[in-house]
């Protein structure tokens, strides 16, 4: 280390020594002022330029990423809406095939029923036969005065009786005819009801069709918006993607809980199969890894099953398989899944046996009284519960494929969006740093001039005495350049 005394030009006088040193330094700095200004300016500009360039590149990259994200988002949205429209059309097709295929039969039935009603109606319209012509003769006889004697009286009585008989008969016939008509009308009633029912059914089916058509219209509108790459569609899809991401994350967390329970169920009995004393890492037993592998295999089988059923579309190769191969794959996955579920149920039973054995050993070692036997079927409930859980959980895990697909797809959008934002923030930070570097170089120039302020003032004085152009000591413009 250099001794401070070595720098003392005037060893006995520190102040004078320092003053002389400062003066020498000032003169040296003044002499180097122009090249030093150049160096500081060059470094500042180089830094600022590089940072600004990097910032621009990042902003451009962010814009590209955003465009790419938008393209991916719209493509996903288009695919999803397209699939939904396709499904709606399929549904409409099924509806049309199922309901309108029977429409000619329905129409014929309606026509037949209407014809029959018409015929019956016509029958009802037939008026009873008019009273016979002798009614007028009876009216004439009725006008004969009754004072004509006994014979006339008798004749009139007989005529009256005869007329009354005929009247009763005619009235009876008339009533019978009306009864028949009423019967016919009564017979029409079921046909009316049938027609009403049929028409209601037709109305409902047409209503369903209209509803489906409205759904298709709505989806088509959405599809058009996506195809037009509108900002509204992008915003809707981004929100939807975010919602999907959250929902999928929640469901996956729940599934992870299920997997953890499953793991706990089979980790101990797996030690009976692969050994309890083997360790893969410092704290990871082989039996635990084996249990984990079984759970992962179950999840994979579930994934393949869902793919083969075309519920998820994570593997295009499986989706594009022909129907026969796909059906085979469904059966293979299902059989493997069932086998694994049975194995898990057996392992759950084994777990209970192992725990009971360990408990019995510990009790015998403690030399305490043997444990009371469990209460029949009540004591077996936990074992049965474990077995049922062991059987059910693999199937429950199989459905993880659905939220997993949503999670992967939405994570792409969310991640892409976050990355673009991050790049933009980084670009902004570099821009700020660039500006800071530029201003710092200016500040350094001013500071440098501050260090050599005395020589600058002398220079100014000498120039003014010579009558030359007056140069102000702080002769830097706003950009840090020396003024001419």
């Amino acid at each position, binding site marked *: 280390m250099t001794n401070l005394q070595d720098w003392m030009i005037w060893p006995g006088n520190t102040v004078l020594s320092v003053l002389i040193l400062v003066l020498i330094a000032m003169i040296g700095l003044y002499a180097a002022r122009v090249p030093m200004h150049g160096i500081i300016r060059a470094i500042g500009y180089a830094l600022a330029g590089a940072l600004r360039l990097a910032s621009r590149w990042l902003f451009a990259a962010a814009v590209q990423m955003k465009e790419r994200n938008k393209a991916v988002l719209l493509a996903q949205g288009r695919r999803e809406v397209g699939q939904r429209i396709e499904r709606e059309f399929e549904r409409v097709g099924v509806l049309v095939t199922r309901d309108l295929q029977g429409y000619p039969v329905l129409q014929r039935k309606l026509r037949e029923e209407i014809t029959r009603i018409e015929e019956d109606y016509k029958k009802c319209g037939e008026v009873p036969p008019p009273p016979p012509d002798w009614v007028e003769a009876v009216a004439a006889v009725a006008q004969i005065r009754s004072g004509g004697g006994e014979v006339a009286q008798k004749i009139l009585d007989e005529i009256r009786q005869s007329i009354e008989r005929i009247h009763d008969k005619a009235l009876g016939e008339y009533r019978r005819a009306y009864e028949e008509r009423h019967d016919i009308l009564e017979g029409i009633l079921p046909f009316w009801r049938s027609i009403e029912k049929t028409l209601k059914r037709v109305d409902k089916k047409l209503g369903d069709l209209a509803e489906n058509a409205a759904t298709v219209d709505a989806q088509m509108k959405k599809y058009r918006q996506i195809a037009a790459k509108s900002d509204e569609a992008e915003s809707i899809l981004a929100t939807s993607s975010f919602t999907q991401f959250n929902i999928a994350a929640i469901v996956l967390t729940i599934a992870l809980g299920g997997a953890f329970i499953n793991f706990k169920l089979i980790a*101990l009995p797996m*030690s*009976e199969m692969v*050994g*309890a*004393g*083997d*360790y*893969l*890492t*410092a704290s*990871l037993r082989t039996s635990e890894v084996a249990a984990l592998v079984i759970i992962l295999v179950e999840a994979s089988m579930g994934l393949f099953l869902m793919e083969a059923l075309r519920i998820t579309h*994570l*593997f295009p190769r499986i989706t594009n398989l022909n129907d026969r191969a796909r059906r085979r794959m469904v059966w293979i996955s299902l059989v493997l899944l069932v086998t694994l579920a049975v194995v898990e149920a057996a392992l759950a039973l084994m777990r209970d*046996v*192992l725990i009971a*054995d*360990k408990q019995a*050993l*510990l009790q*015998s*070692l*403690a*030399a305490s009284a043997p444990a009371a036997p469990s209460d029949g079927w009540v004591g077996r409930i936990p074992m049965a519960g474990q077995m049922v859980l062991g059987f059910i959980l693999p199937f429950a895990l199989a459905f993880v494929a659905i939220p997993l697909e949503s999670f*992967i797809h939405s994570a792409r959008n969310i991640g892409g969006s976050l990355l673009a934002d991050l790049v933009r923030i980084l670009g902004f930070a570099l821009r700020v740093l660039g500006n800071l570097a530029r201003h710092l170089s200016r500040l350094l120039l001013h500071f440098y001039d501050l260090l050599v302020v005395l020589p600058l003032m002398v220079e100014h004085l000498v120039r003014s005495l010579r009558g030359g152009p007056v140069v102000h000591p702080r002769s830097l413009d706003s950009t840090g350049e020396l003024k001419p």
Partner: protein
Amino acid sequence: MIKRTFRALVVALGLVTAAAGCTDPRNHVQAVYVLIDTSGTYAREAGKAQVIINYLLGTLQPGDSLAVARVQSRSFSEKDIIAKAMFDQRPTQANAQKRAFRAKTDAYLRTVQGSAYTDITGAMIQGAEFLNETGAGRKTILIFSDMQEELDKVTIRSFPISLKDIRVIAVNVTKLNTDNIDPRRYLGRLEAWQKRVERAGASEWKVINDLDRLDAIFTKS
């Protein structure tokens, strides 16, 4: 998508393999050698040894090893091993072995007979041999004794022994009548054993007199 998933899987597998490669699975295996002093008055304490053996049987895991040997006039011999077992990897088999082990030691401890001298050093050398042969990651010698070594004139044990990487735990170190007169004898005896054991390369020396604190056997001090 598939490529990315495949890459992630390869990386994960690589990490697991690397982690597995960095550790020795044998480090988790324990081997315990229990020495039971059957000399003189201490033979009366032998019944308590069953408590320790039971604790060990309940604590040791499948794959671990356990041996019980007696300490008598000359104990550097396999014949002094009362029972030994390397527990099976399968828990059910290991439990069966433990039951048999317990029955064997129980039968011995009921009929234990006192010996004239106490060859603790010879028993420790025998124990170290057994433990090193097991290849276990954690080796422990449990000495159930008053730690008062008494040898006949012919027996030679005054030479350096090797207990490298072995934990030595003295359990139920009872006080002799002379210790009660001058406790420095007891403390001095324990100190001398500690020095000898540490000089022999033992990784740990511990004394546990309270049989309710047996969990300290497997905890590091």
